[in-house]
């Protein structure tokens, strides 16, 4: 124990087995009593030399990074893929093929024909979960539209609620944009300013908010985000999106 608690060792980090003793000793052990323990040399010339060398190393490192193309942020958006290319996150794969613009009296819908295949789990995944890992925007304005519903291409009368596991399914993903909320008339201007029916139906998406009409729409951009599994407080599994984008596709809409 005696050798362990010699003074020099004390300054460097102390004796691991006798902390009380360490505190007592270190109290009157100032740095001025122990020259030469610092990494910075005492000699001024030597200091300049060390600083110059460090600067040179840093310059070479920065230059090297620049030469090899520079740094890129970790969540960089991948290059847009073409229609028909598969994009995948850990939960499912999405292969968008084409988009159609359907107009009705309430607004318009963008129907994207796509293949969806759940590969990450051995149970059905709701359309809502799949939709929540995608962000869609109308082009060229770039306003966000939210939460598609789904319908089977084989059976257009259907509404799909679940995508079945390990089954590639040709699906119409349908994003609806209301031209004007028909319930807005029920609210006074004050109430509308406070959000109108948002409490009932959730906030309006950007496209509705900014009054995008079918004439403004030339295409749709879909960004597929990475999905991750979290646990809710009562222990249920929940799949949510992460900020990482794993695929981007732009489809021009065909008007029908």
């Amino acid at each position, binding site marked *: 124990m005696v050798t362990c608690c010699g003074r020099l060792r004390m300054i460097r980090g102390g004796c691991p087995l006798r902390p009380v003793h360490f505190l007592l000793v270190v109290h009157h052990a100032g740095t001025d009593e122990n020259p030469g323990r610092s990494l910075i040399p005492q000699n001024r010339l030597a200091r300049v030399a060390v600083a110059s060398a460090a600067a040179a190393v840093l310059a070479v490192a920065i230059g090297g990074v620049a030469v090899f193309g520079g740094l890129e942020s970790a969540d960089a958006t991948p290059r847009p893929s073409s229609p028909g290319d598969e994009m995948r996150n850990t939960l499912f794969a999405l292969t968008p093929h084409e988009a159609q613009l359907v107009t009705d009296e309430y607004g318009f819908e963008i129907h994207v024909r796509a293949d969806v295949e759940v590969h990450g789990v051995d149970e059905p995944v709701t359309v809502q979960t799949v939709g929540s890992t995608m962000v869609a925007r109308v082009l060229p304005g770039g306003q966000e539209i939210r939460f598609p519903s789904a319908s089977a291409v*084989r059976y257009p009368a259907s509404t799909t609620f679940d995508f079945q596991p390990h089954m590639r399914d040709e699906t119409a993903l349908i994003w609806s944009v209301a031209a004007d909320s028909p319930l807005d008339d029920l609210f006074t201007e004050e109430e509308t300013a406070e959000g109108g029916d948002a409490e009932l139906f959730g906030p309006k998406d950007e496209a509705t908010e900014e009054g995008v009409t079918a004439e403004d729409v030339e295409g749709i951009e879909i960004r597929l985000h990475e999905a991750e599994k979290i646990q809710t407080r009562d222990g249920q599994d929940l799949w949510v999106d992460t900020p990482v984008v794993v695929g981007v596709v732009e489809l021009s809409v065909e008007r029908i």
Partner: protein
Amino acid sequence: MSSPVVRRLWSIVASVVLVVVIVALQRFLVSDQDQLDPIATSGTADAAVATDDFTAEVAETGVATALEVAGTDGTTQEVEANGVWVVVWVRVTSEHTPIDTMYAELRMDDDTLYSERGWFTDSLGRSDFSPGITVYGAFVFEVPRDRLDRPALLLTNASGLDRRLGAQADIDLGLTDPAPSDAPIALLPPEVQMGDTADASE
């Protein structure tokens, strides 16, 4: 008196042992989700399976590549399967309270789950069940052909869409020959069966 080093060693060893014991004991904890799993009653397709809330009796299981469903204006329409259609005909009788949502799943031998397709208005998945009234109809599943392996039907009383602690029938369908027939299966709407006599006369 043992030296401080030895004493310290002892306490380290004791701590490690205790940590290992704690981790080992954690394995006996039942997760929140498992505590609330549906309460399953197992059975086979040969006999009725009685749960606390309902009785289910599988009458027939059909596998086909096409399904004939009612279209608009009384016409019929054929829908091709993306794999195979598995159509399970069941008699369901609620025991004491109305069942508004019967959640149906098909579980394969490797525990992969397929949910009721939900597309067809004539499916039993759209029915509700009043106590004592037997309803006969079909649940429709769509499964990739190579995944259809010793399926079992899971029916869960999901009142208020909440399946936690719900009564569940776990019925082995005993499907020995999963080869699909080429002839389409006609999906008929559910019918109420009031005892055996009604079955025969109508």
